[in-house]
């Protein structure tokens, strides 16, 4: 079957997987047959797309904070806000293959697997990157240098380098194999601490390499106005990987005021990102990275993650769905009608909709 030509301006929602609680992470499996998602209900949910079947893997005792598939084996790794990582054989068993109980002094925020599949890398609140053997969950090494909570990790397309981004806007490059810090890139623009704040706001919430490895996109938000609402300007910095200099700063057109939690490059070097906004629709945004303004955007609820299908034509977004009770106060609400907010895993097809095909 021929692959339709990529055309993000004609992207459309081709499938929706509803879930009764809020989901913050979602990923396609490397073979594209599965979707895994996690969030507020402590479970790891796995959908087998062709059969339209879902199963839930029970084990985490708090919100699931990160998910990543093994690139070659049928393994899924999940992490939570109590520093626990679990490895699942998601096809065959509901029980974890192995568990790391204290992968972080506090919360694990990010997971990534090296291209050869040998190492699972985690990072979070204690600012120390840990490298684990994927086959047994044993610690291989630790990488120290960050001064604050690490929110994001990415591996370069050639598999040789790891990048990590923290609350203060420090992006560090590490060599995979001998595990040395190579350099630090400056994304401090994405961190705000004004004189009257009582907490640091922002940080490097997302990292993505272009397919040719020549560009690194660093996402978050700049110029936060307070540490309460935490409203800022969603921002992406495009670094030239060779020089480590910022080539461009990308903006959004719409009104979103939260950080970019996820970024992905498409095969033609179009960058896609998603952000959040309070109580209204956000948008999925596409850029040609030499232009600061988006080339296209699609209205969507707040989105917290992005995953690109191996066919490079489908994009998965865990999307916020209000339960009808949002906002201040509970006037008129009762325990019976005060309902949880929910999610939909929305899959956007990045090409023109075939005639007669229905959305969702």
């Amino acid at each position: 079957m021929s692959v339709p030509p990529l055309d993000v301006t004609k992207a459309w929602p081709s499938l929706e997987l509803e879930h009764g609680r809020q989901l913050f992470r979602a990923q396609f499996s490397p073979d594209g047959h599965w979707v895994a998602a996690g969030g507020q209900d402590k479970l790891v949910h796995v959908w087998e797309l062709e059969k339209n079947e879902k199963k839930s893997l029970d084990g985490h005792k708090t919100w699931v904070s990160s998910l990543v598939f093994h690139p070659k084996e049928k393994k899924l790794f999940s992490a939570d806000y109590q520093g626990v990582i679990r490895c699942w054989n998601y096809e065959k068993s509901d029980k974890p293959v192995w568990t790391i109980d204290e992968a972080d002094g506090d919360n694990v925020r990010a997971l990534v697997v090296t291209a050869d599949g040998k190492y699972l890398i985690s990072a979070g609140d204690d600012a120390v990157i840990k490298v684990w053997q994927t086959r047994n969950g044993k610690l291989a090494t630790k990488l120290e240098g960050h001064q604050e909570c690490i929110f994001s990790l990415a591996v370069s397309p050639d598999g040789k380098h790891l990048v990590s981004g923290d609350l203060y806007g420090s992006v560090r490059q590490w060599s995979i194999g001998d595990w040395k810090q190579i350099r630090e890139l400056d994304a401090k623009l994405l961190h705000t601490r004004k004189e009257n704040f009582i907490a640091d706001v922002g940080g490097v919430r997302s990292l993505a390499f272009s397919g040719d490895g020549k560009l690194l996109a660093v996402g978050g938000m700049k110029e936060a106005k307070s540490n309460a609402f935490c409203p800022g300007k969603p921002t992406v910095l495009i670094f030239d990987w060779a020089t480590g200099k910022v080539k461009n700063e990308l903006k959004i057109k719409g009104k979103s005021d939260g950080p970019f939690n996820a970024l992905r490059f498409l095969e033609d070097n179009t960058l896609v990102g998603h952000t959040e906004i309070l109580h209204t629709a956000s948008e999925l945004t596409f850029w040609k990275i030499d232009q600061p303004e988006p080339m296209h955007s699609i209205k969507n609820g707040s989105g917290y993650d992005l995953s690109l299908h191996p066919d490079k034509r489908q994009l998965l977004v865990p999307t916020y769905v209000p339960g009808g009770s949002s906002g201040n106060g509970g006037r008129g609400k009762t325990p019976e009608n005060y309902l949880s907010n929910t999610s939909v895993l929305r899959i956007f097809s990045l090409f023109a909709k075939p005639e007669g095909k229905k959305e969702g």
Partner: protein
Amino acid sequence: MLGNLGGLVGFGSLLHPSIAKQIEEKQKQVCLIWLDGGISQYESWHPLPESKFAGPFRSIKTSIPGIHFSELLPNTAKIAHKISVIRTMATKDPNHSTGVPRMQRGDPLDRGVDYPYLGSAVAKLLGPAEPELPPYVWIKPGNGGFIHREAGFLDARYGALALGDGRPPVHIHRPDGVTAELDAARNALRQKANERFRAYRNTSDVDAYETSYDMARKLMARKEIFDDEKLDPKDRERYGLHPLGRHVLQARQLLEAGVRFVKVNSYHWDTHGDNFNMSQRLVPQADQPFAALINDLDDRGMLDNTLVVMMSEFGRTPLINSRLGRDHWPDCWSIALAGCGIKRGAIIGDTTKDGAFVNGEGYDVGHLFHTIFSVLGIQSHRQKYRHKGQKLSIANDDCEPIKEVML
């Protein structure tokens, strides 16, 4: 009485003479820690990790068997047996602009007047604990000065002396070129001018000016209580080096010196966005100095006479919004109290399983004000303000003290 006096012997010379005098005279004092914007009850006093509305944080055991707080309150969890927590506040108002004054004025029945904020009310109803100090000091970020608006319809002199960023009032030090005699003569002239002015003007305004000058003179005589240099560095570490830590430590110093009512404000708790990352950084800033203050007052024998209240204008929604924040929720939330007639270890309140709603009636701010006044020895139903010939209740007539948390 014997117990109190007996207890004093153990503290010996550690106690400042003014503290010993206050304890002996059983002077009641108050420290109100105000977390402006609204601390989340789920990320503090009522974590309910199995609730569908729970955040990602653990709940931890406290010093009271079977009672859990959020892991973001590790220090307070250790002293839970010294405090009370009301988990069923139901206060109606979901807005900051009206919720803050309502919670600090106590919402007596509307008689068309601006009621005083709690600190001014206590200053009026109990007077100064130490005559040479202002009865109501407010430590707050930002600017300081004399904030007469806090007094509402009371005379402006019951307003708050605000220490901006915890700094002492400007010009607290008499210039070297002004001798004590010259200063006294200058004050006498000012008072004479005020008397003439008073004959033809609103006396409340003159009183406010007069009060400001009086306070300044009193503070000049007690300027050592603002001297940060004298604070033990270990105390600073225990309370925290962040503004709230520094300000609560300063509050302890002012309470020790004999100030009747100290309010400490911390702003930016209105976590509509990124509630969990923010709570992770904010709640410990309240936990650390709150627990340190309770312990220090207890160690000094002051806790039985000093009421400590930590609260906001409301709690935060059970629902988690699109920015991973929580919005305003006055329908079921928590406050903490300790000392001065408050039970130790009373963690009260029956809520729905997920913590979203109160089972039963809940407590409004009127109940809270009756409780506060009652433990301070003020007869909250009988005692009245007099304003322009009108008798005005000091707390909402329809409410009663919360007996469950009172000794």
